[in-house]
């Protein structure tokens, strides 16, 4: 577990990924179990864990570690 990065910990645990997975490799295209069902469950999980409510725009961009991180800190991805 990476105590300095709770988002990374959450994604590793949620998708059952190896602990040494690099954040840039956590993308929907590269994680086979990241389907539409997992997407819904992930949103609920993120909202629970980080006490946030995503807006419609943010939800459409939650496709990778980077995009989720940006949505959580309120900065849109470029």
């Amino acid at each position, binding site marked *: 577990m990476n105590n300095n990065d*709770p*988002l990374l910990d*959450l994604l590793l*645990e*949620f998708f*059952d990924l190896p602990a040494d997975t690099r954040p840039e490799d956590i993308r929907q295209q590269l994680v086979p179990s990241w389907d*539409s*069902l997992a997407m*819904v*469950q992930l*949103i*609920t*999980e993120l*909202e*629970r*864990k*980080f*006490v*946030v*409510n*995503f807006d*419609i725009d943010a*939800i459409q961009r939650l496709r990778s570690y980077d995009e989720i*991180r940006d949505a*959580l*800190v309120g900065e849109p991805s470029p």
Partner: protein
Amino acid sequence: MALGAPILTLTQVKTVNLIRQWINSFPDVQKDAILQAFESASLPKIRRALRLLEELGQEQRGPGLDVELLSTYNLEPLLPVLSLAMNCLPSRACPRLAPLDSIETHMAQPARSHAQGVFGARMIIWRIEEVLPEALYPFSHGFPKRLAASVDQLLDRIERVVTLHRRNSPGTPLFLSTMPLPLNLANPVAAAQHCAGPYASVSRVNQKIYEVAGRGVGVHVLDLASWAAFEGETYADAMVDFLARQPLSAKGQVSFALFIARCLRPLIVPRRKVLALDLDNTLWGGVVGEDGVNGLKLGHEFPGNVHLRIQRELLELRHRGVLLVLLSKNNEADARQPFESLLGMILKWTDFAVRKINWNHKHENLREAARELGLGLDSFAFLDDSDYEREQMRQVMPEVLILNHSSDPLQTLRALWETDAFDSLVVTEEDRGRHRDYTFREAREVEGHKDDLEVFLKSLEMEAAMEEVGPSNVERVVTMLGKTNQFNLTTHRHSRGHVETMLASPGSIALALRLRDKFGDQGIIAVLLAVRGDNAATLVIDSFLVSCRALGRGVEDALWAAMLRRALRQDVQRIEAAYIPTAKNSIVAGLYDRLGLRRIGHNSGSTCYLLEPVTFVESPPWIALMNENQ
């Protein structure tokens, strides 16, 4: 980014407390994982808890439970938490989802049949947003007349669904959900102003569901309308609803799953039959032996009103069939005084089936009460304001469920409100008359000392009616199969579906004995189920049981004779039977020997018996048979 775990709603806290009791027999690793999963509502933790449960043996995990979920919204994301909640009952639960919006299509097929020891259930979970969307926009849909007509159509649909289920899957319990008020509704003030408005329309639909379930035909209510009202709007998440047609928030998902599990629990876990309780600082405030009757607090002022409410709750339990037992360290004369002269007393001295008022240990008195009632310790719940008494009971008798956890009377009252120990889906006439039956039994036992046994039994003026098991009594038969521990030769806990399958098998004999005596109608108190063996001339006794309310009267002999009479008419040549010992049924260890069967061997701990040739035996002369051709 902010980090935080959600604070559980009060409803969830209460339910998680119940879960602790449900999973009490699990090892600590599983217990901790389950509690963490529910408290965090985290999906990875839920998955982990499920994985850990898979590691347990079948016996630790409880009976199989096959639940079919038919829904108008998307429950797929909730399957892990639903599965975990149902596994905590405890059971080896396997929730299955039917395709979305396919209620009638799916119900046209028979529900899956289940092996012995596996319970089945079907749940229909629907909401107004899908089944009556017009109600959200009444003025766009011809309010009031056309909207009222749409509601009428939905009421007809509910009837059709129940008919479909009864026709195709009569043995499977059906749970119909009620419908929460729509949360996302513009102009809620106007919505409440007309009897054909949105809120009244939802109310009509729910009323129909309550009415259908009240007919007592294996249809039960999953009251999601009440659940949603208790939860408040935190249960919902409009964004996820739009995204995936799944309306529940993370908090809502846990609460929803636990609520569903609690509603299923009475199918597989019998309720506690007895509540043993204290007097002082429970039924009234104060200690009668020290404060005197005039110093006790009971009435409409605080804090006497808390004790008054406790008494009302206890009386309601007694009328629902829970026996009350008084355990008090007092002088009996002191203890009786408030029942005779304290103003405002709701409970009467005679509302207690057994009273143990002395200076003995309470666990000793409880054991004595259990013996007198003919019930096991695991039929008992215990309520006491003393930390010492509760702790001693917990240590000496771990089978007894301790309901309250502090000396505070309000906490005692909350314990009565929140416990699931007395949950049941059906309250039968037998339940409602149980206190009376035990009181009569006490009277009978007193009379029984007057004369020899047979003279006494004759004096009871017993009349037995043999009923073929069928739609009118199968509910009671299934209840007895689920609850009877002592006089039960095989302790087969069959589901209603399994019993109905047996009834449908050619050559089966299924009898229920209804007993009446000079004290009143005792209801169905004995059951015998038998099916044909591999050879058509062989009858195999599947279940043979007598309610503990009717032990020692010879009703088992009358029922056995009635079965033999039918078997001989059907040319049965041999009867096979087995005694399967449990921790509680040693009372019937020698029954088949007494009835003249021959021991032919042992099989996995059970003793196998054979009766060949089959010959008729007389019914006991002290029981009149009402509908038997001799």
